[in-house]
C-alpha cells in the first residue's frame, strides 16, 4: 500500500491518504472520515473548521495519534504510523507532539510546576533537570511566579498558558490545539492566539480545531470539513466583514 504512495515532499510533515474512520454506534455505522487525502507542510499553521459532526475532532484525534484509521494511511514525518500499536503511538505523542485543549486539561491536584513537568516524567528526566525546564517554560509563557500554585488558583488564560508550556516541554514538532480559546473571553483568547502565533513563527507546526472564524483567521491555511470529507481549503490571511464587526463590537 505504501509502495506507490511514498512521500514526495521533504517539507511535508503530515499526510493522510484516503483516510477512513468508521465508528460503530449501536447498529449504525458512522463514517467520521470518509476518504480524506491531505498534506500539511512543516512549519505551517492550519485551522480545521466545520460544524459539529463534520469529522474535525476525529481528524484531530487521528493526526494527534490518539486514534487509528479504519483504512487508509497516515504519514507523520515520512513515517507510516497507521499500523503502529498503542505503545508506539504513546511514544510518538511523548516525543513528537504537544496538545492544548479547550478545557485546559491540567491535573488539578498537581502544582503548575508538576503539570508542566509531566511529559518529562515519562521521558525519564531526573527531578532537578525537569524543575529547571519547567521554570524556563513557565517564564516563557509569563507565569514564572506561579510555579507552586495549583490550577484552581489560576484564571482561565493562565491555565491555558500552563497547558501551552506543558505542550512545549518535550520540544514537539507539531502542536495540536483543540478549540484553545473556547473557554476564554475574547481578549484572553486573543493573547493565547498571539502566543500560538509566536510559536508558529519559531518554527512549530500548529494544527488547530476551531469553529470561530475570528480565531481561524490566525491560521495561514484553513481546512473546512463537512460530513467526513474536505469541503474546501483556504490559504492566506483573511478577515470577513462580519468578523470585523464582531471584533469592534467586542471592544
Amino acid at each position, binding site marked *: 500500500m505504501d509502495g506507490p504512495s511514498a512521500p514526495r515532499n521533504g517539507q511535508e510533515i503530515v499526510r493522510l491518504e484516503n483516510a477512513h474512520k468508521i465508528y460503530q454506534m449501536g447498529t449504525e455505522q458512522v463514517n467520521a472520515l470518509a476518504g480524506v487525502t491531505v498534506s500539511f507542510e512543516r512549519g505551517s499553521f492550519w485551522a480545521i473548521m466545520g460544524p459539529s459532526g463534520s469529522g474535525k475532532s476525529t481528524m484531530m484525534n487521528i493526526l494527534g495519534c490518539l486514534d487509528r484509521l479504519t483504512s487508509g494511511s497516515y504519514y507523520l514525518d515520512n513515517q507510516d504510523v497507521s499500523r503502529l500499536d498503542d505503545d508506539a503511538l504513546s511514544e510518538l505523542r511523548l516525543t513528537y507532539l504537544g496538545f492544548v485543549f479547550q478545557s485546559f486539561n491540567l*491535573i488539578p491536584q498537581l502544582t503548575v510546576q508538576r503539570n508542566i513537568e509531566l511529559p518529562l516524567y515519562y521521558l525519564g528526566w531526573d527531578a532537578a533537570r525537569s524543575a529547571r525546564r519547567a521554570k524556563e517554560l513557565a517564564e516563557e509563557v509569563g507565569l514564572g511566579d506561579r510555579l507552586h500554585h495549583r490550577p484552581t488558583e489560576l484564571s482561565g488564560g493562565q491555565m491555558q498558558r500552563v497547558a501551552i508550556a506543558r505542550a512545549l516541554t518535550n520540544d514537539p514538532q507539531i502542536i495540536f490545539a483543540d478549540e484553545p480559546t473556547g473557554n476564554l473571553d475574547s481578549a484572553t483568547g486573543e493573547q493565547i492566539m498571539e502566543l500560538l502565533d509566536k510559536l508558529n513563527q519559531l518554527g512549530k507546526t500548529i494544527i488547530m480545531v476551531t469553529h470561530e472564524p475570528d480565531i481561524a483567521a490566525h491560521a495561514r491555511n484553513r481546512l473546512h470539513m463537512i460530513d467526513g470529507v474536505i469541503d474546501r481549503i483556504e490559504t492566506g490571511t483573511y478577515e470577513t466583514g462580519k468578523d470585523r464587526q464582531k471584533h469592534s463590537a467586542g471592544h
Partner: protein
Amino acid sequence: MRQAKIARNIALGIENLLLHKLRSFLTMLGVVFGVGSVVAMLSVGEGASAEAMDQIRRLGSNNIIISSVKSAEEEQAQASVQRSRISVYGLTYQDFTRVAASFNHVKQAAPVKLTRKDSRLRERSMELRVVGTTPQWFDLVPREIVAGRVLMQADEDERAPVAVLTEFGARKILATEAVIGQTIRITGNEFKVVGVVKSESGQAGNIQIPDQEADVYIPLGVARTYFGDISIRQKSGSMEAEQVQLHQIIVQVEDSRYVEAVAAGIERMLEQFHNKKDYAISVPLALLRQAKATKRTFNIVLGSIAGISLLVGGIGIMNIMLASVTERTREIGIRRAIGAKRRQIIYQFLIETVVLSTTGGLIGLGVGVLIPFLITYFSGMATVITLNGVLLPLLISMAIGILFGLYPAMNAAKVDPIIALRHE
C-alpha cells in the same frame, strides 16, 4: 539510575496519597488491623507454646516418668467402707529393680518415695515434702547446686542421715543462718544438711515437675527405714491410711529414639505384675510432640483468621482504588494523551496501592508489637515476637497491595484517552 527512578515513583505515589490523607488512612485501616492482629496473635501463641515446650523439655526428653496412682476401684472401696482401712497400691521396690534391669536401652533410673513431714530447726518449723531417692535422681532431673553437694552412693550404702534442701526450702527453714552442716529434725529424726539445690516448680502438660520448692532429699534407704511405707492422713473424722512403696520411678533412656519403645515395654511389664491399674506412665517426648501438633493446629487457625482479615483489608483497598480510578479518569486521559504508556499507568496505580498496603502493614506491625508488650506488662503472660512473625505479615501486606491493586490498575490502563478527555 533505576533505583532513583523507583524511589521517585514511590515519592510521587506518596505525594498523591497525601492529597487525600483521611481517605488514604481509612483505606489502609483494614490492613492495619489485619497485620496488627496477626502479629499480636502469633506472638501470644508463640509465647504460650514456647513456655509449654520449655517446661516439657525440663522434664527431660529422654525420660519416662512412672507414677503411682490410686486406682478407681480402690477409691470406691475406701469410700464405701467408711472406716479406717489401709489401701495398698502403687509401684513397688521390685518394680524399680525390674525396670532398671530389664531393658537394654535404659541408661539409669531413679526411684522416688514421697512423704510430707513436719520438719523443724530449733524453734522454726514447717511441713516439707520429703523425697527419698537415690543419687541418680540428680542426674535425671538436673538441678543447679547452690551450696554443698547432692546425695552420693555412699550415703545410700551407709544409710547416712543426710539431707539436701532446695534453695527456697532452705531459706524458709534456716532463714539467715549458714545452711551446710546444720541439723534439721524431720519428725524426730535428725538429718545433717549437706547441700542445697536450686528450686523449680510448675506443671508441664499434666505432669508435675518432679521437684517442688520445699523439697528435702534424703537417701531412699533412710526414708524407708525411718518413715516406712504407710502414710496416715486425718480426713474429716476418719483416718485414711495408704501403703505405697514408691511414688515415682524416673527412667532415662539412652537415646530419644528408644523412648517410646521402652515406655511401651514398661507398660507391658507392669501390666503383668499389677492386677490393678495403679500406675501411670508419662513420656515428656510424646507430650512435646503433642504440644508441637497443638501448636501447628493453632497456627493453622490463626493463619486462617489472619488470612481472612487481610483479605478483607485487601478488598477494602481494591474498592477504594477502583473508585479512585473512576474519579481520576480525566487525569489518566491527560497522562495518556501526553504520552504515558499503558504500562506506566499500571505502575502508577500499583505503586500507590502497594505504598498504601505496606504503610498499613508497618503501622499494623507497630500495633501488633505493642499489644503483646502490653499483655506481658499487665498479665505477665509470656509473648514471643519472632522474625518470621514480623516479616511474614509485612511481606503479605505488600503482596496484598500488588494482588488487589492489579485489577484497578488494569482498569486505569484501559481508559481510552479520547473518551477520558471528554469526561467531566
